[in-house]
């Protein structure tokens, strides 16, 4: 129920209020009827009747005074009339005129002025032509009307009392029979919505409400059953999903180990100059396929983390010009290979900073740029622009002049593995890049939107919260982010791209510059024989000496006997794993109490999950490599580790 509805209901009257209002209106109507009709009518009737009664009395009085008038024995007349007036409360004064019209009673002046309640009635004494005289009587009905009204008021009050008692009884009955059970049911409904299925239902006194309560009870039992089965289903689904995530995580790990060998050895083989052109093409195909497989594994891993909510982002102010520069640099060779021009439009300084995870933002932007390039036409264009949005947001738009897609396709574009039919055949892709991008942007409190016109081009807009930060701070942040050893793409020059159509392969080859390792001795702990061989080959080609051991225990005994310059260890090994090994070495170093003794340790694992890296750093490793890695990455990491050691 919307809040406005709730408000509206709050203003509706309760049954009690409605009943009371009806009572009041009814009472007012009765009162109005009494005041405006009954009482005036009653007064009028009473007055008429009293006047008639007075006239009758007067007519009867006539004969009894006729004789005294005729005989002029006025004492009898006066006695008679005085007594009559004395005895009758309503008689105010009497006048007697004789046949000549002379007033013979009373003795004084006759007052002709009447008060509002006084009426005058007349009666002849005798009849024409023997008219003896005439009687005029002023009567005052005030007392009689007052009495009559008093009775009416008593009657009305009694009527009101009866009505009030009846209505109060009805209201109380309604309250008990309807309002109270309904309020009880409402509470039961509310609590049921909160998950309480045991709230005691109200006692109903009427059949209708009994049915209602009974039906509600049945409904609640059924709902309880549904909810229980829903909860069970949800738990089952969650378990299944968890199992899937575990499976995917495990899969990616298991796939990385052989991929490491495939990529490593194919890379090494490609460095051989004595290859026949046919062999080189085949090796390149192996390396390319391996690289694609690795991308796929990485994205599946991201997706599984996103689905299991284990992927975390760290929001910080990100300086957009730097990040866009890097993305531009990284995708330029790819753009060139597709004959697409890539332009970052000038950025207004006021919108140069957003709140985001720099690494993940870069991942999203590269994904969008790659798509814009991949699905473009020959000599197509890609533009990146940044502009301010409403309420402190910043839009990053990636616009292309590509093939575009229809409205229908727009709805599917962020669904994992839903590749658009027409492109699926012609363009490489995993089909989950955009869905990952969407979720990443949402994790960064942003949103991603798309507008496309088929055959004209598409525009992807990322909306992120704006951040206030100085350019220098932003630089530092970005530098720190770029130095982390985990990323799949490296910078490449345009010259390289021209020579090598495949950016990944060209980068791998351009980075192979033999380092003068000056005969440094590295201990390699690795349980997989093929990977042992790969390490040995890569390290020797980089000019290092190496000794191979199968697990942590062997590594420890090797370290006891021989002085090594660096330890390169796998994480998951039998007997003693890489993390435990590192911990033992570090505790041994601190036990020596000799300052400056620090064995550089580089951990290397197919566990690409974030947690693994964190626990590696906690255990005391100096650098962390995720399998599969390229020789150049290995070279970088080793170089950094040695540099750090020398600097200490």
């Amino acid at each position, binding site marked *: 129920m919307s809040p406005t509805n709730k408000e509206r209901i709050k203003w509706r009257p309760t049954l009690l209020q409605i009943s009371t209002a009806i009572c009041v209106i009814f009472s007012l109507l009765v009162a109005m009827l009494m005041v405006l009709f009954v009482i005036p009518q009653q007064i009028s009737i009473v007055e008429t009747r009293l006047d008639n009664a007075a006239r009758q009395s007067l007519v009867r009085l006539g004969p009894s005074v006729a004789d005294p008038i005729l*005989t002029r*024995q*006025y*004492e009898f007349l006066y006695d008679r009339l005085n007594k009559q007036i004395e005895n009758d409360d309503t008689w105010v004064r009497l006048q007697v005129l004789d046949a000549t019209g002379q007033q*013979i009673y009373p*003795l*004084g002046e006759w007052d002709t002025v009447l008060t509002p309640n006084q009426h005058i009635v007349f009666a002849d004494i005798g009849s024409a032509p023997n008219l003896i005289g005439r009687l005029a009587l002023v009567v005052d009905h005030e007392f009689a009307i007052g009495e009559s009204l008093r009775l009416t008021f008593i009657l009305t009050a009694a009527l009101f009392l009866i009505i009030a008692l009846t209505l109060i009884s009805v209201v109380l009955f309604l309250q008990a029979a309807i309002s109270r059970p309904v309020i009880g049911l409402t509470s039961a409904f509310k609590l049921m919505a909160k998950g309480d299925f045991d709230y005691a239902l109200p006692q109903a006194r009427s059949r209708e409400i009994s049915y209602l309560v009974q039906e509600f009870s049945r409904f609640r039992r059924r709902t309880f059953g549904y909810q229980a089965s829903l909860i069970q289903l949800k738990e089952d689904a969650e378990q299944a999903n968890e199992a899937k995530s575990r499976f995917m995580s495990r899969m990616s790990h298991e796939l990385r180990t052989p991929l490491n060998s495939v990529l490593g050895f194919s890379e090494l083989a490609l460095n051989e100059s004595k290859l026949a052109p046919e062999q080189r093409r085949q090796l390149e195909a192996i390396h390319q396929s391996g690289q694609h497989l690795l991308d796929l594994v990485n994205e599946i891993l991201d997706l599984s983390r996103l689905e299991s909510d284990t992927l975390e982002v760290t929001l910080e102010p990100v300086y957009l010009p730097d990040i866009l520069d890097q993305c531009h640099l990284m995708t330029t060779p790819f753009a060139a290979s597709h004959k697409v021009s890539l332009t970052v439009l000038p950025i207004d300084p006021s919108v140069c900073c957003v709140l985001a995870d720099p690494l993940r933002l870069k991942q999203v932007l590269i994904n969008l740029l790659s798509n814009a390039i991949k699905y473009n036409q020959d000599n197509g264009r890609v533009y990146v622009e940044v502009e301010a949005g409403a309420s402190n947001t910043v839009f990053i738009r990636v616009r292309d002049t590509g093939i575009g897609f229809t409205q229908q396709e727009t709805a599917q574009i962020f669904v994992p593995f839903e590749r658009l039919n027409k492109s699926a055949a012609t363009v490489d892709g995993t089909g989950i890049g955009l869905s990952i991008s969407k979720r990443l942007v949402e994790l960064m409190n942003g949103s991603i939107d798309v507008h496309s016109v088929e055959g004209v081009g598409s525009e992807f807009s990322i909306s992120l919260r704006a951040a206030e930060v100085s350019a220098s701070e932003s630089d530092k942040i970005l530098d720190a982010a770029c130095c982390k050893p985990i990323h799949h793409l490296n910078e490449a020059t345009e010259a390289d791209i021209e020579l090598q159509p495949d950016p990944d392969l060209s980068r791998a080859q351009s980075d192979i510059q033999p380092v003068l390792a000056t005969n440094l001795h590295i201990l390699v702990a690795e349980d997989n024989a093929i990977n042992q061989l790969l390490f040995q080959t890569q390290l020797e080609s980089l000019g290092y000496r190496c000794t191979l051991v199968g697990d942590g225990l062997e590594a420890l005994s090797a370290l006891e006997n021989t002085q090594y310059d660096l330890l390169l260890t796998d994480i998951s090994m039998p007997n003693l794993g890489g993390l435990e090994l590192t911990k033992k070495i570090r505790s041994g170093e601190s036990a020596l109490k000799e300052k400056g003794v620090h064995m550089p340790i580089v951990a290397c694992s197919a566990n690409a999950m974030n947690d693994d890296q964190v626990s590696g750093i906690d255990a005391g490793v100096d650098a962390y490599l995720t399998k599969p890695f390229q020789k150049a990455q290995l070279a970088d990491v080793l170089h950094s580790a040695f540099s750090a050691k020398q600097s200490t």
Partner: protein
Amino acid sequence: MFDRLTNLAGLIAFATALSLSVPVIAANNYVVGVVPQFATQIISSTWEPLLEELAAKTGDTFELVIETDITQFEVTFERGDYDIAYMNPWHAVIAFETQGYVPIVKDGANSLKGILIVKADSQISEVSQLDNAEIAFPSPNALSASLLVRTELATLHGLTVTPLYVRTHPSVYLNVALGKSLAGGGVLRTLRAQPQSLQDQVKIIYETREVSPHPIVAHPSISPEARLKIANALLEIAAEPEGAALFAGIPMQQPMSAKLEEYLALRDWRLREFYVAN
């Protein structure tokens, strides 16, 4: 006054002597008549206690008889039906002449005289202005208010008037106040008893000569001893406070013994000429 006291002393002395000399007189039954100038009930409530008291004093029994009107009363006493009667002075004269009734007790406080009234705003101030006028009177033979006034208007002032008899004194006053009659005959006592509003509307222009008030008379068949015994008993009652109150109701303020001569003087006033015989 002195004469009266002497009379009373003489009477008492005589009565005492008589009662001593004749210790036992046989018990008699007397019929008592009262002039019906008031309502029967009033007369009855006034006279019955007095007669009981009188019976207790004398050992005789007294039977009160009240006629419905004065005419019937006159017929009755002229026939001599009453042993003892209370009547006006002129009736006393008639009663003496017809049956030989003699007064035994009278009211010594008030003497009677008639008055003639006209409307207060009337131009009439002299009786001479009333020649040939219609004048209201209670009844023809009402002594002071009617008989005395009519007699004097004719015999002393030589006027001829048209009398209208309206039964009661208040009716006379009302006729005058209402302007129905130019003048009316009454007595001061009854005029003063009228409401002030009525009194204010009339004025007195003439008063008659005085006569002795109503006497209690006794029939000549009653022996002089018995008459004296009754008179003494009445005066004894009047001397007691309770008895005085009973007499006041008659009304008789100051009872004293009466003489026939006082009343026979009325015969010279030519009242008989104006008396309306039944």
